[in-house]
């Protein structure tokens, strides 16, 4: 399945992202959201609001620029001020990862648009592996909390998935010195399990296609009782779901996990760390 290229641009000045040509070529709707520390925020001179997770002394500020609104009023004072802030007052340059949901076939537009900057096309890395004789928790789609002696809870499954993807030992005895972790009970042993990891900057549209393909796995009867798809966001991203602010306390985790059962029931875990609001 094609998980699409993404692009890496080094030292791209911010003013390029508010250029009218950029917005009309690549942006259908969107905002530019900046998460800045106090000094940078004061130096840019832009209007923003304090971060929700800053603590008593506000050290982080969020600036949000509506790009569609901006590009429709190029003569406005607002555009002139933002342009001046990014070009002269505090020219900021960052390395960017760009991905573009193309409805046409031209991928070269992005490469040629940013040809003055060092733009490189990248493909997400795909790693496939097979695990044999895997102890696997027994699940019942209608029982999220699990049923003693009958099925495991969603929380136990979530931890077990982490153990599988980290290659942890799943069969430790309770008196083992190194680790006492074992697969949640009740469990069965699965002869073969397929694991696939895709790493990169991946568009939601691609993930939706992948999920649809996974659901079609059960179009014909299969031995497997369920399949799972887990998606993790970038730890340092300023936003998580929609435009919710994303913070990094001890960890910047924000992830979701679909479990699709053979009867088309599904479970969806949404997990965030301490620096985030409850997911939608």
């Amino acid at each position, binding site marked *: 399945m094609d998980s699409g290229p993404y692009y*890496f641009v080094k030292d791209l000045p911010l003013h390029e992202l508010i250029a009218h040509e950029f917005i009309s070529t690549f942006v259908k709707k969107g905002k530019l959201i900046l998460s800045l520390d106090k000094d940078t925020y004061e130096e840019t001179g832009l209007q923003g609001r304090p971060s929700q997770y800053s603590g008593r002394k506000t050290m982080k500020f969020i600036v949000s620029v509506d790009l569609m609104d901006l590009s429709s009023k190029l003569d406005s004072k607002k555009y002139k001020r933002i342009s001046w802030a990014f070009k002269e007052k505090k020219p900021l340059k960052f390395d960017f990862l760009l991905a573009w949901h193309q409805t046409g076939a031209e991928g070269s537009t992005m490469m040629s648009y940013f040809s003055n900057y060092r733009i490189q096309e990248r493909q997400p890395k795909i790693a496939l592996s097979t695990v044999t004789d895997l102890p696997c928790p027994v699940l019942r789609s209608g029982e999220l909390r699990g049923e003693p002696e009958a099925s495991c809870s969603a929380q136990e499954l979530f*931890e077990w998935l982490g153990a599988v993807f*980290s290659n942890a030992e799943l069969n430790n005895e309770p008196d083992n010195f190194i680790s006492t*972790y074992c697969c949640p009970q009740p469990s069965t042993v699965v002869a073969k399990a397929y694991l696939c990891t895709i790493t990169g900057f991946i568009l939601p549209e691609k993930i939706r296609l992948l999920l649809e393909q996974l659901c079609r796995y059960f179009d014909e009867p299969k031995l497997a009782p369920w399949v799972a798809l887990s998606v*993790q966001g970038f730890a340092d991203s300023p936003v998580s779901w929609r435009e919710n602010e994303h913070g990094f306390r*001890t*960890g910047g985790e924000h992830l979701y996990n679909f479990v699709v059962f053979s009867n088309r029931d599904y479970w969806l875990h949404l997990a965030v760390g301490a620096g985030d609001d409850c997911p939608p």
Partner: protein
Amino acid sequence: MPAAAAAYERIVYRNPSEHHYMKVHLEFQDHGIGLNAAQFKQLLISALKDLFGEVDAALPLDILTYEEKTLSAILRICSSGLVKLWSSLTLLGSYKGKKCAFRVIQVSPFLLALSGNSRELVLN
């Protein structure tokens, strides 16, 4: 028989994790020093004991994965013991007379979050 109507249930948990998970890496000033999994665990227990005493040295601590070549591990600790473990790792300075330090790469209440680290994405 008519199909059952679609049902929907949403459960929200706050701080549900009994455990926290840490991805750590032990770095020595000089190279060529190896520890097996049991020695690594013993080192963690003695770090806890030095700072917090016998009782906290017996905190339920698991080494879920351990790589002897790189001296990196994923640890599982009960959530109430996270701060004690983390501070013990921070203050550990040597092993058998050799200078070393623990680097904490990732911490999360979710083990699945440790299977990927966006800060390790290599771009250059």
